[in-house]
Each structure stands twice: as structure tokens, then as C-alpha cells.
């Protein structure tokens, strides 16, 4: 009985750890131009979060809850 939003939270955690790693690389190697990369990463992570949450809302509208075992249209 696991939620779909738990996977979205883990995805957010991955994006945050990538942001922290890129910022620390930019600060420790004294290369300020690399600071562009975490900012752009944040922009595209925000897009991805928005689309993921929209899919979550449409799943929750169809099935009532966002349990992962509800997504079973393909049955082999």
C-alpha cells in the first residue's frame, strides 16, 4: 500500500542532492560560471515537479487514492 507521491518526494530529494553537489563543486574549484548549472537544474526540476503533481492529481481524480497498485490497466 505505497503512495505514488512517495516516489515524487524521492525524485525531489535526488534533485536537491544534485543541486547541492553542483554548488559545492562550483565553490570549491573556484569556478563561478558553473553556478549557472544548479540554477538551470532548479528550473527544470520545477517543471518536472509540476508535471508529476498534475499526473498525481489526475490519478487521484480517477481512482480516489494514489496507491501504486491502482495503476494496473496493463495485465499480463
Amino acid at each position: 500500500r505505497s503512495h505514488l507521491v512517495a516516489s515524487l518526494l524521492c525524485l525531489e530529494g535526488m534533485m536537491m542532492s544534485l543541486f547541492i553537489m553542483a554548488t559545492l563543486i562550483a565553490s570549491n574549484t573556484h569556478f563561478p560560471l558553473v553556478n549557472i548549472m544548479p540554477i538551470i537544474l532548479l528550473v527544470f526540476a520545477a517543471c518536472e515537479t509540476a508535471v508529476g503533481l498534475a499526473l498525481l492529481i489526475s490519478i487521484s481524480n480517477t481512482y480516489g487514492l494514489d496507491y501504486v497498485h491502482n495503476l494496473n490497466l496493463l495485465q499480463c
Partner: protein
Amino acid sequence: MAYILFTLSVLLVMGFVGFSSKPSPIYGGLALIISGVVGCVIVLNCGGVYMGLMMFLVYLGGMMVVFGYTTAMAIEEYPETWGSGLEVLGGLLVGLMMEVMLVLWVLSLDEAVVVVVGFSDTGDWVIFEGEGSGLIRGDSIGAGALYDYGRWLVVVAGWTLFVGVYVVIEIVRGN
């Protein structure tokens, strides 16, 4: 405190274990917010003041707020916290135990965690032209160069955000 960066990184991993052991989404969001705050302080400790501010504003202030009310809207049941089910508690304890073992192993080595006191990595660049002397921060100047060398990247990112909003509206409309 000398080992502040090491302690903060251990707290960051513990916060990540807190939401990756998959409690109910509200508690997972809380653990993500705490991890975000700790990660921001790590970035601040290495001299990236502008990056820490960006992370607080965009990430914690924007995306976590959206996560919070979407979770509150899409979930209605009895939320399970870290101590209620055996799977969540087991995952949390395994993660914490792995982190404790890693910390003990790192501290038992000779030169892995040392105190680095150096003034070469505080991150300020002193400029001496113009009238008097000035001071620029490396990270805000670097991020400002996004609008100089990365003009086309700004246009692409802005267009991506616009199309993303349109995609979200089309998905939520359904049928």
C-alpha cells in the same frame, strides 16, 4: 564548531533516510523540508550565499508549498508515521544504522576528516579598479552570467516553463 560540515552532511543523509523509508506523504514532505534546510546551510558554509538563497526561495518556498497542498488535497486517510508500521520503521532503522556505521568507519581513519582552516576558500573576489576597492561574491556573479553568456538558455528555460504550465493545465483538465 570545527566539524560542522561533517555533522551537517550526516544530518542531511539522515533526513534523506527519513523520507526514503516512505512514511505517509505529509511526513515525507516534512523530512524533505528539514533536509532542504540542512542542505542550504551546507551550501552557505562553503561560501555559496546566493545559491543558498535561491534554494530557499525556489525550492523550499515554491516547490515544497505546492507539494504540501497537493498532498493535502490528494490524500485522505489515516497517515502512517515512522513508528506505526513495521516496514517504515525497519527501513528507517536500517538507513540510520548504515549511516552510523559509515560515520564510525570514517572517524576511525587517520586523515579522512580534518579541520581545514584556510582563507583561500571564503569565496570573495576583491577588485581594485574604479574608485577605491570593491568586493564581489563569486556565486552571484556566476549566476548573473546566465543572462550574458547564456541568453539562449534563458529563452529556452522560459519557454519550457510556459509550455510546462500549459501541459499541467491540459493534464488536470482530463477527459
